[in-house]
């Protein structure tokens, strides 16, 4: 099997996101299945600009051949203005405007697309759906595309142009069942081969005592943890407010620690510690030391943090509005959820008071993570999906082609 990967950025410098996850997947497919994998990408590292920071050319990384090409354009700030228009009523945006938006979002790189089209790859994995490479790649490569859409229920998904994109590919690899349900209720593609592949985490280690010290906590001090980017869209600010309210009503409650890069300022106080970005060993030490982890975001596509918490021995509380984290909690029996303050207070009280419950939740969550999201299972599921797409009759039908 020879797999291509068409992706806007690729490399060890690309941290987080589905691009990072697919790099790991490609490396494991090479190592565990003996596949040949070629990557078609740009020199971008940052999704904020798509600026070509890495030199163009061909190279090899962990057994994966990487073809890096220069972009014609990166992310244009004017895409933000169009985005405001799109967010108001995406379903009625004319195709010409949608195309213009896609061009402005970038990165526009026809050379990488030409490379992928000329390659002898059996299938080309394409991701994520929102950017220029995926939209033009899916339409040009058609049924050869194994689409990692990484779709959220956001306005861009409902642009009319997306219907062509999603209907033209050969099959789908989803992060979660809720992503599959979202895509299938948005586009008529349920007959195409699809599988929920998910993601995985590699368990790290860290010293709880050292982590407490690094976070500015007293030795042995109990605390509650929130890991990830600190920004409103991730629910950080509302969680801080919830916790302050909780501490008003429960004066003896432990402190809440935010661990992760601060993208939108959040003030700390007696009850809330904003620790910022920390080394991995501090993160794992904190996960192992905390009473429980809270994931307040309503908008996760997978949430590796939930799996990391379970592996490290922490139960989780998630926002009931988030389908992905709810799916983890419901499937595993490893977490609780909240919808409003009353739920939040009840769940926090129970998790802080009941160590047996914490142990039960962690046992369930860890078991689920190790069973479902281990590398052999993921690679096997991916291989089965790839073979189904290759054997699919749809592979021999003509895909929709974007007009010039």
């Amino acid at each position: 099997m020879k797999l291509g990967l068409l992706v806007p950025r690729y490399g060890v410098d690309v941290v987080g996101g589905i691009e990072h996850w697919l790099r790991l997947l490609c490396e494991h497919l090479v190592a565990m299945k003996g596949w040949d994998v070629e990557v078609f990408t740009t020199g971008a590292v940052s999704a904020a600009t798509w600026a070509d920071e890495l030199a163009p050319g061909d190279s090899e990384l962990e057994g994966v051949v990487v073809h890096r090409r220069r972009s014609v354009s990166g992310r244009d700030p004017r895409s933000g203005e169009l985005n405001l228009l799109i967010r108001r009523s995406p379903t009625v945006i004319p195709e010409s405007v949608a195309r213009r938006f896609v061009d402005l979002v970038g990165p526009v790189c026809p050379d990488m697309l030409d490379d992928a089209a000329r390659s002898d790859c059996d299938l080309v994995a394409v991701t994520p759906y929102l950017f220029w490479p995926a939209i033009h790649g899916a339409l040009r490569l058609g049924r050869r595309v194994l689409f990692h859409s990484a779709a959220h229920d956001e306005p861009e998904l409902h642009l009319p142009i997306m219907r062509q994109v999603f209907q033209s590919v050969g099959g789908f690899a989803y992060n979660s069942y809720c992503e599959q349900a979202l895509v299938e209720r948005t586009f008529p593609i349920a007959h195409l081969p699809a599988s929920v592949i998910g993601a995985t985490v590699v368990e790290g280690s860290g010293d709880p005592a050292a982590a407490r010290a690094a976070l500015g906590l007293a030795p042995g001090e109990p605390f509650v943890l929130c890991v990830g980017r600190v920004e409103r869209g991730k629910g950080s600010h509302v969680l801080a407010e919830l916790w302050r309210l909780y501490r008003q009503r429960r004066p003896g409650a432990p402190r809440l620690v935010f661990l992760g890069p601060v993208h939108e300022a959040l003030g700390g106080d007696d009850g809330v510690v904003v620790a910022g970005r920390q080394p991995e060993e501090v993160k794992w030490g904190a996960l192992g030391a905390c009473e429980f982890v809270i994931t307040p975001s309503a908008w996760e596509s997978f949430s590796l943090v939930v799996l990391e918490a379970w592996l490290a021995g922490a139960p989780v509380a998630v926002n009931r509005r988030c389908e992905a984290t709810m799916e983890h909690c419901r499937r595993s029996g490893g977490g609780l959820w909240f919808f409003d303050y009353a739920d939040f207070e009840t769940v926090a009280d129970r998790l802080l008071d009941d160590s047996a419950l914490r142990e039960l939740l962690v046992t369930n969550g860890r078991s689920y993570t190790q069973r479902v999201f281990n590398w052999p299972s993921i690679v096997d599921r991916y291989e089965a999906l790839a073979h189904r797409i290759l054997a699919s009759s749809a592979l021999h039908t003509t895909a929709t082609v974007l007009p010039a």
Partner: protein
Amino acid sequence: MATNEHGTSDVPREQDLDRLIGELETESARRRAEPGYPHDADARLHFELARRAPSPSSALSVSELIATVQDAVAASGLPTDAAGRPTRSRRRQRDIGRAQLDHVVGQLTSLGLAAAAALEAVTGRLERVEEQLSALSAPADETIEAADSPVADDILAPWRGQLAGELPTGTRVLYAQSRAAEVVAELRSAGIDAYAVTSSGVEHQPGPDVRHDDIVGHLRAVADGALGAVVLTGLTEAMTPSVIGPLVKELARVTRMVVVISPAPWWWRLRLGAMRADLSAGRPLDPDTWLHAFHGVAMVGTAHYDPSGQSYRVVARRLP
């Protein structure tokens, strides 16, 4: 106990956790009803908890609404002094009016937030009740194979060997639902690009060949004419009449060929016994009913009974 893609329990001690979730929900409801419960803060945090994107939130829209109301008051044509400000007495009146409007807008906003929260809570509760009801109605031993009834097996047996020879190749074929995994494997080994949908078994299925879904819901998510054929077996006899119409309509939209394998009504009644048959939510249709239904969507068909007369097969094709 439900099983996952590795054949083991997806949710150990599921019953304990179900009970715990119920306890927590009851406790939450009690706290909401307490006199000191922070309803104002809860309403304020509601939109933030639902924040999904960095776009302007509804809360901002409320601010905009207040600003608009204030602007409207300001632009109401009141007499002004040399600096462009309303005269003292009129300005005082305007301030009072603005304060009253702000108060009303604030009250309406709180009411709206509380109503939205209540509706979402009710919706969530209803979803959970539906899930629990579904779980209650599911077989105790909830695996794919065990969920296939002996009746379904019996009626599939006479037709199973002929299926592959009758279905088109080079196009996608949907099979639902008796012995889904086995039959799909047989069809695929015969060169047919088949996949299955089943509403029995666990929700999360392994691999791309068998998926857990409601048949009508699944067909609605399929593109026009995307399937070469659809085979229905072990499914239609459990359907209520209200589902048959939408099912036939969707079938006509997505495929050119439909195969229905069903128990004969007399045998189904005999097999189940009069009381269970009478109380059943669904029952097998007469083959003529299927033919009539397909005729209504421009498909023509033929019906055959197996030699025992216990089951029949209807094959309908779209008119050219």
